[in-house]
């Protein structure tokens, strides 16, 4: 209903809000109710979680390219060799996920829900910057807990221009033209930094993205299996065929 999306998951919001309101008599502050929230007591993890991924995204003349590997690892075990790390949020926004898979999947769904509600209430889509801000504010109360989400939101705003934001569960929100996230990110960065230009064609950009993920999967134990590539333009997102990283490298 009318509950603020930022409150999702908080417990005992009323205790915090009463305390704060009594302190500030002269300068009345405006809080969303339940801020700062009391953190829920930490639940012990069922097993050690590992955060292995290579995801990347960059802007060029043809829109935004997002690429990721498909390996979900759990300590030394490959829990799933065919997972989806790039999740569409709506027709013109796609998010790459890194960190704990379950957290990323959940928060992407919450973000999709809140963006849809915004669209229904206000009659227009929220910009990528706004979506990134919403996600950052929703994640901030969980800072200091085990929640681990590092996402890049790749979108096309209002039919005008591509947009790329990095949002992390420690509260970071950054705008940029090139991001790589995950344990394999340094390997991907070094390939991308040498090749990304504004003037790339769509084919060149896709190929570069695949190369970068492949190089990272080669060096990083926690990245591997296949490569997903998404391309976002003014018409929305389009998913490229999932290709095996090894196959692509040997048959460029």
């Amino acid at each position, binding site marked *: 209903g009318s509950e603020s999306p930022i409150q999702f998951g908080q417990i005992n919001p009323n205790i915090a809000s009463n305390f*704060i309101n009594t*302190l500030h008599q002269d*300068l*009345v*502050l*405006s809080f969303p109710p339940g801020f*700062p929230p*009391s*953190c829920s007591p930490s639940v012990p993890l069922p097993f050690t979680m590992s955060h292995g991924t290579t995801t990347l995204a960059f802007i060029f003349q043809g829109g935004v390219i997002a690429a990721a590997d498909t390996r979900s690892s759990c300590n030394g075990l490959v829990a799933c060799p065919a997972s989806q790390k790039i999740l569409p949020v709506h027709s013109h926004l796609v998010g790459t996920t890194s960190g704990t898979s379950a957290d990323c999947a959940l928060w992407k769904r919450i973000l999709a829900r809140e963006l849809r509600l915004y669209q229904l209430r206000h009659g227009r889509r929220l910009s990528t910057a706004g979506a990134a801000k919403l996600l*950052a*504010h929703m994640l*901030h*109360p969980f*800072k*200091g807990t085990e929640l681990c989400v590092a996402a890049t939101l790749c979108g096309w705003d209002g039919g005008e221009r591509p947009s790329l934001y*990095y949002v*992390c569960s*420690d*509260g*970071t*929100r*950054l705008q*940029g033209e090139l991001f790589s996230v995950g344990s394999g*990110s*340094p390997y991907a*960065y070094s390939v991308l930094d040498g090749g990304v230009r504004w003037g790339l064609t769509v084919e060149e950009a896709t190929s570069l993205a695949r190369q970068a993920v492949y190089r990272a999967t080669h060096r990083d134990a926690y990245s591997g299996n296949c490569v997903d590539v998404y391309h976002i333009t003014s018409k929305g997102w389009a998913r490229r065929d999932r290709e095996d990283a090894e196959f692509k490298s040997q048959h460029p």
Partner: protein
Amino acid sequence: MTCSIFLQNKYVMYQDKMFKLSDKILLLCVGEAGDTVQFAEYIQKNIQLYKMRNGYELSPTAAANFTRKNLADYLRSRTPYHVNLLLAGFDETDGPGLYFMDYLSALAKAPFAAHGYGAYLTLSILDRYYRPDLTRDEAVELLKKCIEELNKRLIINLPSFSVRLIDKDGIHDLEKLVPVGAK
């Protein structure tokens, strides 16, 4: 001035660390990732809300004390903000003012200030050459001296600094300072 470099998991991203609180007040905020932007934007929006509700802006002194009070309140809560701040502003009656705040919510008005490891290197330069009656060009030269020293001695490479000036006419963006070459 603040260096516009931001370290994210050991890799470099660029971010503006100065937040405009009002037409003549700037807040420079550094510290833990996430906390900086969250706290600074929270202060920024509340300062603007005060202006909307009351019809006039908070003075730099009032804004600094308000910021400090918030920092102090959160310090002993479950969610302290680990941020170091410099608040710079120009008051119609009092003139320019600089306020130094740290994450333990200490507040001090100072003629010049610095946070971080760079402070160890630059404060003595500022001690040596600062005078209250510096001209604008002399002040920029003093900044350049500080940046040259950082370029020479600081282990972290800081390639670019954004510079802003606040006077009776408001906030002005000055030319970005880029230290050149290794010494």
